[in-house]
């Protein structure tokens, strides 16, 4: 009987050990990159295009970052900070990646920032840009190739001030990015604010908020509601009859993801962005047309950022001549000066981009499709507001 138990447990343990050894990866000369986005649930609508674009970028450079053997490990964070943490832990400890990239959500970024940077792995954000890592807590192992959250609403704030719009009603989801967005807006907006409402992250039904909004009688509404949240809100906004009554301005809300679902409900709304599918540089033209050909849809800005992440890594690894020397890599990454969908890329001292902010309008094309069109540059070569608090100089 004792033998029975012993033999069975030995069997179980050897099974586990074999599984463990099978998972060990190959050589030290392979570039290993973890790419984490949200692929399931309502937010999958953002993660999928990012993964698509990342793969397209790899295709365009022949599958080898910096000319070296490359292994990409994809992860689905399910929009949960603890899942992201576990993924990151696995990628660093088991898969031994040199880079962790991706990360859509600011709260997830805040959760993994510490663990990744402490473990001597580079963290590259392909989207999330919370103020928390842009100022005092900036890290030499963290790079953001997308934007700093406040940049876009700052642009909108400047635009609406210039147009003398006052009595604005603000809405954003209640999390780090949401708060950053409205803070950024208020930094540049000089008019009167009628209301500031934070909704639940992932909230689907906005009827109660819409009723309250109507009662406040603002002259304009500015919202930050990415992904599915924006789709639900704008649909319900239109259903309540407000589209024609109170003009709607937004950031990260009306884009290639939400437009197909919103259709007419979004036409005529204005947004701000650092990228648009109609930007004229050659990299962007190739990206947009190949993406459309391969996936049948217009890429959203999230996808452009994922594509740029590939370009960023490719350029840095090539310049540094490999991934072995982290100092060399860092220098190569900082220098920037590589071609992306937004033109030639440049970093600020806090490793966040310096870039243009454009005004975009949602329109319906002659062929019945819905796109956003660039209407002008609001802020040119704009750096974020937190860079000066960051102690890094190079």
């Amino acid at each position, binding site marked *: 009987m004792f033998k029975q138990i012993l033999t069975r447990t030995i069997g179980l343990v050897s099974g586990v050990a074999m599984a463990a050894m099978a998972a060990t990866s190959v050589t030290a000369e392979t570039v290993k990159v973890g790419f984490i986005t949200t692929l*399931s649930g309502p937010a999958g609508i953002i993660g*999928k295009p990012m993964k698509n674009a990342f793969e397209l970028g790899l295709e365009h450079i022949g599958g080898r970052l910096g000319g070296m053997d490359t292994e990409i490990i994809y992860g689905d964070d399910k929009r949960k900070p603890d899942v992201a943490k576990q993924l990151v832990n696995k990628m660093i400890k088991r898969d031994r990646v040199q880079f962790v990239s991706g990360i859509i959500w600011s709260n997830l970024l805040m959760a993994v920032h510490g663990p990744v940077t402490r473990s001597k792995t580079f963290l590259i954000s392909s989207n999330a840009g919370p103020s928390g890592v842009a100022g005092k807590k900036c890290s030499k192992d963290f790079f953001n190739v997308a934007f700093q959250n406040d940049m876009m609403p700052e642009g909108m704030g400047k635009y609406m001030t210039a147009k003398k719009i006052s009595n604005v009603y603000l809405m954003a989801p209640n999390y780090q990015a949401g708060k950053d967005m409205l803070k950024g807006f208020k930094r540049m907006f000089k008019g009167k604010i009628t209301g500031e409402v934070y909704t639940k992250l992932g909230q689907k039904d906005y*009827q109660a908020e819409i009723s309250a909004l109507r*009662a406040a009688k603002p002259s304009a509404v500015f919202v930050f509601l990415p992904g599915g949240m924006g*789709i639900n809100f704008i649909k319900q906004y*239109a259903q309540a009859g407000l589209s024609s009554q109170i003009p709607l301005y937004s950031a990260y809300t009306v884009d290639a993801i939400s437009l197909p679902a919103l259709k007419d409900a979004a036409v005529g709304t204005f947004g701000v962005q650092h990228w648009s599918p109609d930007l004229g540089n050659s990299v962007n033209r190739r990206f947009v047309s190949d993406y459309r050909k391969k996936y049948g849809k217009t890429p959203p800005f999230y996808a452009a950022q994922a594509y740029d992440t590939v370009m960023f890594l490719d350029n840095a690894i090539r310049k540094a001549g490999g991934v072995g020397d982290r100092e060399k890599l860092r220098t190569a990454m900082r220098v920037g000066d590589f071609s992306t969908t937004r033109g030639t890329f440049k970093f600020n001292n806090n490793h966040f981009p310096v870039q243009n902010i454009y005004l975009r309008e949602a329109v319906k094309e002659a062929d019945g499709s819905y796109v956003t069109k660039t209407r002008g540059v609001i802020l040119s070569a704009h750096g974020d507001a937190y860079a000066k608090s960051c102690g890094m100089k190079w």
Partner: protein
Amino acid sequence: MDPLLLLEQAFNGLQFGVMLFLIAAGLTLVFGIMDLVNLAHGALVMIGAYLATALVAWTDSFILGMILALPATFAVGALVEIVALRTLYRRDHLDQVLATFGLILFFNEIVRIIWGPVSLYSGLPDYLSGHVEIIPGAPYPVFRLLIIAVGLAVAAIIYFIVAHTRLGMLIRAGASNNEMVGALGVNIKSLFTFVFALGAVFAGLAGMMLGPLTSVEPGMGEPLLILAFVVIIIGGIGSIRGAFIAAIIVGLADTMGRVLLPVLLRAVVSDAAADTAGPALASMLIYILMAAILVVRPRGLFPARTG
């Protein structure tokens, strides 16, 4: 506080309550008659929503698609009952909880495989996308009014069936003591299947109406399931009347609570404290309400079971 806004929020609460009733009705019947704890009821809400979305796309007509989705959900409900749930009636509650928990995982995954993990956003036809000024100065979405109307109509139909038909009599007797009903020669097996499938239709109906309002995605039923549990605990297991009254109470309490609590608190404590405590209390309100009611009535407001 603007009285018009209050009235509008009351309508929102009513709409929410009516939706909860549709989900709770099937749940309480199944508990009451078959003594079955069915965690997978939320999955039926989701299945109804997906079937409706698919049928609307297939028939290219909103009304036709929705109507066809009802018997489709009935069929799925009956199938689930026959294949998966019959073995559970004899089991204890723990087994039922775990087995139906496994069913949730299974259904959410099936739906993910067939339709993908990304949420589906279905539109409303133009004639339902508008708004009506039932409250002067506050246009209210037509579709939400439709939901209220449908919910009340279903409640009336259920009341009629339960109070004035033989089937209803069997249901009431079964809720009281199902062994006796079986002993009296009624085909209990078919009754169970029918009742379950009927509950599935109501749940699916809620899902179908929720879909165009928000979105359709795997796991959409679970948050509503918990609230439905609260509703039937408050209303009393096995009681349709209890479920209806409790659902309206819960719907109104939740909606009005979210709006009024922060305001009321500001009158008592400082603004900063009210802004933190308000939303916190509002989200817990329903559960506090449930606990309070249970102190006075441990079996809910209108318990149906005698055994």
